[in-house]
């Protein structure tokens, strides 16, 4: 059963999706691995798939959701998936440092997608007030962003308690912790529901000069080298889907909910809206969706290097490749 996969994996050769005739036209079979479970954050991909944009671009695409303990970089590097929407600049750095043969071909969220949240009526008004407080955050990158922000306020590691955050924002709601980390499109919605928007104060990394682009489109080095036109075709169709989704958010949510019908619609509509803002912010305003803003990526790289999250200086020119995007006319990339 399924010897092909087994052989491919043990042989460590990347499985290049084979070309199969489908009717008159030849479609390239490919898969996209998302960074997380199906939700409106990925609406554009589902819109493009359901409207047949990928097929028109010659790609027979299967969208595979992510999950806890699945790493997109890993699955794309091994050839199990063709394309990936991976964690972000941080996970691309980590993958490149560990010699995973993947490159980034586009960046979805131009700004840091998460913020640090406190209670508006609480004792924390400035970053300096974080001293002695209990903070929960993700230990996969967000922790270093916060450390960097707090360093600007003169605080160092021992001045506060930092705990890993998973699953639930309930400890913050129950006032067991003072600061919680929230993506603008997901946890923040839950917080608004449980605590109320007016009772929340946010600390935005970008306001403190730390921008941390996330949700990166990745492909294996082999795909990038051997089939650049497929990568460009994928990006072109993806951007078409996203342009539709950004213009008509309701239809975008519909596309997602046709795949995952048990999701909560108001939450998904909020997510669509917020994720959309992140996509058109920063460099995307002039250079179109999925733009790789090199100075920003460089700054994030230097920041991580300074905090020793990555130990070695990376060749960013090799890790981030804009050529696939640039093969698409700018007018077609604009939101």
């Amino acid at each position: 059963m399924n010897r092909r996969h087994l052989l491919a994996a043990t042989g460590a050769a990347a499985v290049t999706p084979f070309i199969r005739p489908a009717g008159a036209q030849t479609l390239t079979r490919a898969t996209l691995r998302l960074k997380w479970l199906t939700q409106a954050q990925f609406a554009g991909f589902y819109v493009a798939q359901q409207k047949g944009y990928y097929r028109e671009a010659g790609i027979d695409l299967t969208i595979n959701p992510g999950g806890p303990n699945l790493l997109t970089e890993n699955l794309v590097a091994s050839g199990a998936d063709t394309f990936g929407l991976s964690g972000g600049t941080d996970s691309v750095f980590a993958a490149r440092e560990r010699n995973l043969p993947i490159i980034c071909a586009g960046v979805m969220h131009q700004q840091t997608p998460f913020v640090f949240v406190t209670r508006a009526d609480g004792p924390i008004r400035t970053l300096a007030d974080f001293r002695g407080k209990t903070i929960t955050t993700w230990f996969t990158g967000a922790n270093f962003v916060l450390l960097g922000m707090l360093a600007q306020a003169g605080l160092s590691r021992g001045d506060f308690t930092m705990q890993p955050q998973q699953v639930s924002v309930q400890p913050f709601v129950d006032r067991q912790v003072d600061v919680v980390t929230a993506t603008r499109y997901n946890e923040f919605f839950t917080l608004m529901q449980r605590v109320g928007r007016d009772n929340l104060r946010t600390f935005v990394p970008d306001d403190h000069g730390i921008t941390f682009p996330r949700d990166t489109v990745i492909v294996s080095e082999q795909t990038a080298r051997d089939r650049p036109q497929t990568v460009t075709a994928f990006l072109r169709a993806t951007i078409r889907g996203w342009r539709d989704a950004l213009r008509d958010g309701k239809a975008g949510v519909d596309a997602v909910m046709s795949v995952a019908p048990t999701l909560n619609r108001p939450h998904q509509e909020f997510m669509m809206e917020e994720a959309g803002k992140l996509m058109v912010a920063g460099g995307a305003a002039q250079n179109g969706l999925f733009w790789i803003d090199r100075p920003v990526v460089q700054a994030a790289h230097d920041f991580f290097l300074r905090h020793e999250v990555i130990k070695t200086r990376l060749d960013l020119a090799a890790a981030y490749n804009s050529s696939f995007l640039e093969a698409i006319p700018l007018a077609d990339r604009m939101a």
Partner: protein
Amino acid sequence: MNAAAMAALRLMGGVILAGLAWEAAVVGFGIRPHLLPRLSDIFAAIALTPGAYWAGLQRTAAETLIGFAAGTAVGIANGLLFFRAPVLRDMLLPVFVVSQTIPVIAFGALVVMWFGNTLMAKAVIAFYLTFFPVTVNTLLGLNSVDPRQAALLRSFGATPTQILFRLQLPMALPQIFVALRLGASLSLVGAIVGEWFGDNTGIGVLLLQAMYNESVVALWAAILCAALLGTGFYALVAWAERRIVFWGAEQ
């Protein structure tokens, strides 16, 4: 068959009673919905998108059944093999034991790399959890057969195959079924955990989505589906046991 009808009726009465008690407890004690929602709210959530739950139920059931069937077949074959070849048993059984101490969920990516995103990948995990208890219990059951009985049959000119199918395997069946009942729930666990490695349909997917969206109602809806599947499958195995091992049923 009247007794069976009565039993079914009693069971139904019990389920309805438990449901009412749940509803009454939540309303009566004013339990906060994020701790325990009302049963009626959970049913309402299911009724809102019945298709998703039905599809999930079917998908997970298929994965469970395939994994269970494969686990049973391989487990019994292993047991027979180890019974006949003690050298293999001594060499491989400890390795099997070690394999069972590994939490599969840690290898989500490996499972996807090796078996893709298919129904089979989930069935493989269900299989992995099922085959071991079946192997061990088959071996135990075969070993518990009195050698004197086998010797007696042999003296009547029975071939080893005949002894196996007429004496040893039937005598081992009660033990094997103990493992099958365990395997019924383990294979469901395997299927659900397997669905956590990136999939669109299944009870495991519904559980995960509900958890990360902090939707307690949806979480309970998925748990009820899992309970339905778990009870149904367990009952099926128990029924098969009563039909097949009519001589050795407990009590």
